[in-house]
């Protein structure tokens, strides 16, 4: 049925262990080559960790699934080397229209805040994202990517996880120090280990249709509450790449999925929605239900759960793959430090704590959207419709309309890895300890670039000043000294004026002062930044001892 995309078929190769009969011993295995597993493998590989990546299939995600990739995920994908591919193929949209019954209630224009590299979101079919990530992973010599390799058993003894892997040519054994389970909502690894995931299934069904529009149709998000062509339910229309539009029809729990999927039932719905004269071709139809649930802990000994294997949310807000990529980002650097013996295994508890905090935020927000879109009682429907009626004329009503709150990264303000601000150091703005870093335009050796592209995969001390050439020798020495030690902190000076810093310290220019403004920086302000681009600590004055103490705290070495 799909005409705009050809699924790649990745080559299966007979694993050498089949012939040799030897057990393969590796430091880390990732199971599942979806967006999150591929992301986790690329994250570790970039830090110099060889990764065995196993997937039971030999192609990308089939059909219409994930659509919307939000700013934070795009910034992470930049670090994984596919941000440009995703953004250039993906569709950006700013205008959203909300309809209630026959009328447009209001529209909004999400003009992106200027001076960020990446937009708030791009829409792209999940198979493209996976193809880009898989191609990237296949090009990395330290990623051993094995398609059609299915894990059929998993056992954990002491510090070793043992897997039996089934292929068309037979079964072999893998022993690994660490296992990352990125094997999706039904996670066989989770099931084989007998671990629970708790939550609830939502009593609703949604029909997904991907259609190719023959004529121009605006790149806008249209959301209907109770439209005349689909009474009592909601409908969402989104543009993806290749002029493929994704339509989600809410069906209600009582709908028969097999009936609903039949073209003779789907086509009239779409015609009624688009108007009869508009030509389109149907590419994909499926019916889905969803669950909202998460595991009690995302780490179990040497097994670490990421993405849908660990947590699932309703699709409203695009909080699935977006949060899964943030799991990979949060886990990668911590696992690397633990593997290198530079941090205790306890650091991985913070992976679970921080990502559970984020998962709960995602669950709350997506559940609220679901409850607004699908009222569960008469009074709830009355309030919902009252909000929609008020939204037409009143700003407060528009703020209450909840057709999905787009994925944004969690502010990990309660994390035990943070060092709170010192008494007397006051900061405005939102870059407090635990915050995901804001981007800003910078000059690097005179070339236009972005702050976030200069950071990541290790700790950074970002030191703000005005004239880099005027830094005194003691400051330069203190900054240089940070890069020495068990856990190196890379010093990076950012200044309003051009110039160079002594001691070979890297330097960025902030000619318009946007970085300084976003970080509420003054002369001598210093931020300690985690490898995953969250703020760990900040001070008004440079004090190397305080930075070292904060690094120790952020790595469970305190």
């Amino acid at each position: 049925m799909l005409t705009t995309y050809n699924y790649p078929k990745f080559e299966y190769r007979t694993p050498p262990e089949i012939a040799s009969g030897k057990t393969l011993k590796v430091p880390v295995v990732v199971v599942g080559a979806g967006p999150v597993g591929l992301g986790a493998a690329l994250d570790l590989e970039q830090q110099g960790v060889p990764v065995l990546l196993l997937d039971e299939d030999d192609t990308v995600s089939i059909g219409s699934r994930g659509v919307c990739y939000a700013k934070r995920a795009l910034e992470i994908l930049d670090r994984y080397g596919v941000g440009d591919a995703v953004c250039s193929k993906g569709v950006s949209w700013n205008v959203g229209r909300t309809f209630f019954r026959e009328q447009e209630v209001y529209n909004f224009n999400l003009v992106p805040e200027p001076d960020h590299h990446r937009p708030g979101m791009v829409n792209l079919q999940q198979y493209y994202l996976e193809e880009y990530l898989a191609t990237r992973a296949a090009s990395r010599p330290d990623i051993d990517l094995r398609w059609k390799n299915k894990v059929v058993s998993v056992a954990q003894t002491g510090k070793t996880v043992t897997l039996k892997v089934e292929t068309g040519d037979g079964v072999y054994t893998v022993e690994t120090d660490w296992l990352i389970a990125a094997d999706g909502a039904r996670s066989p690894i989770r099931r084989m280990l007998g671990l629970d995931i708790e939550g609830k299934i939502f009593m609703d069904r949604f029909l997904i249709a991907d259609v190719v529009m023959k004529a121009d149709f605006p790149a806008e998000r249209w959301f209907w509450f109770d439209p005349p062509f689909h009474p009592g339910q909601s409908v969402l229309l989104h543009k993806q790449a290749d002029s493929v539009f994704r339509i989600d029809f809410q069906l209600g729990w009582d709908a028969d999925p097999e009936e609903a999927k039949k073209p003779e039932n789907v086509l009239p719905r779409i015609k009624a929605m688009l108007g009869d004269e508009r030509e389109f071709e149907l590419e994909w139809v499926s019916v889905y239900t969803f669950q909202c649930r998460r595991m009690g802990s995302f780490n179990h000994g040497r097994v670490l759960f990421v993405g849908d294997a660990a947590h699932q949310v309703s699709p409203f807000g695009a909080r699935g793959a977006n949060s899964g990529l943030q799991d990979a980002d949060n886990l990668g650097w911590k696992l690397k430090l633990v593997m290198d013996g530079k941090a205790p295994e306890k650091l991985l508890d913070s992976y679970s704590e921080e990502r559970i905090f984020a998962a709960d935020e995602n669950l709350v927000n997506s559940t609220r959207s679901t409850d607004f879109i699908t009222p569960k009682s008469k009074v709830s429907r009355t309030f919902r419709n009252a909000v929609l009626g008020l939204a037409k004329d009143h700003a407060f009503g528009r703020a209450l309309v909840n057709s999905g709150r787009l994925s944004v990264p969690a502010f990990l303000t309660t994390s035990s890895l943070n060092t709170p601000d010192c008494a007397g150091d006051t900061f405005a703005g939102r870059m407090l300890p635990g915050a995901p870093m804001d981007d800003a335009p910078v000059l690097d050796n005179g070339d236009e670039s972005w702050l976030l592209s200069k950071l990541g995969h290790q700790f950074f001390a970002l030191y703000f000043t005005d004239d880099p050439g005027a830094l005194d020798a003691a400051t330069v020495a203190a900054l240089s000294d940070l890069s020495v030690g068990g856990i190196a902190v890379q010093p990076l000076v950012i200044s309003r004026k051009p110039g160079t810093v002594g001691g070979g310290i890297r330097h960025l220019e902030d000619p318009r002062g946007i970085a300084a403004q976003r970080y509420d920086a003054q002369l001598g302000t210093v931020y300690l930044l985690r490898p995953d681009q969250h703020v760990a600590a900040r001070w008004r004055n440079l004090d190397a001892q305080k930075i070292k103490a904060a690094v120790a705290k952020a790595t469970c070495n305190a």
Partner: protein
Amino acid sequence: MALNLNPNFSEAGKRYFNAYSPGDDFYEMLINTHRDLSDEQSELLNARLILLLANHIGDIGTLREALNVAREGV
């Protein structure tokens, strides 16, 4: 006191990182307060709630404006 028709929810001591959060916090509380009530009970709850809030606002001019806005859309 003119009727405020702009977003106006917040909770003392709570820091918000997304503009929609305080309104969503309130809306969830509102719907949860109705949980497990019959339609008739919900109607009574709404009436009690309006009376409580009206008394808290107190200013008859503001209330008149709110009553008019509410009535216009029905």
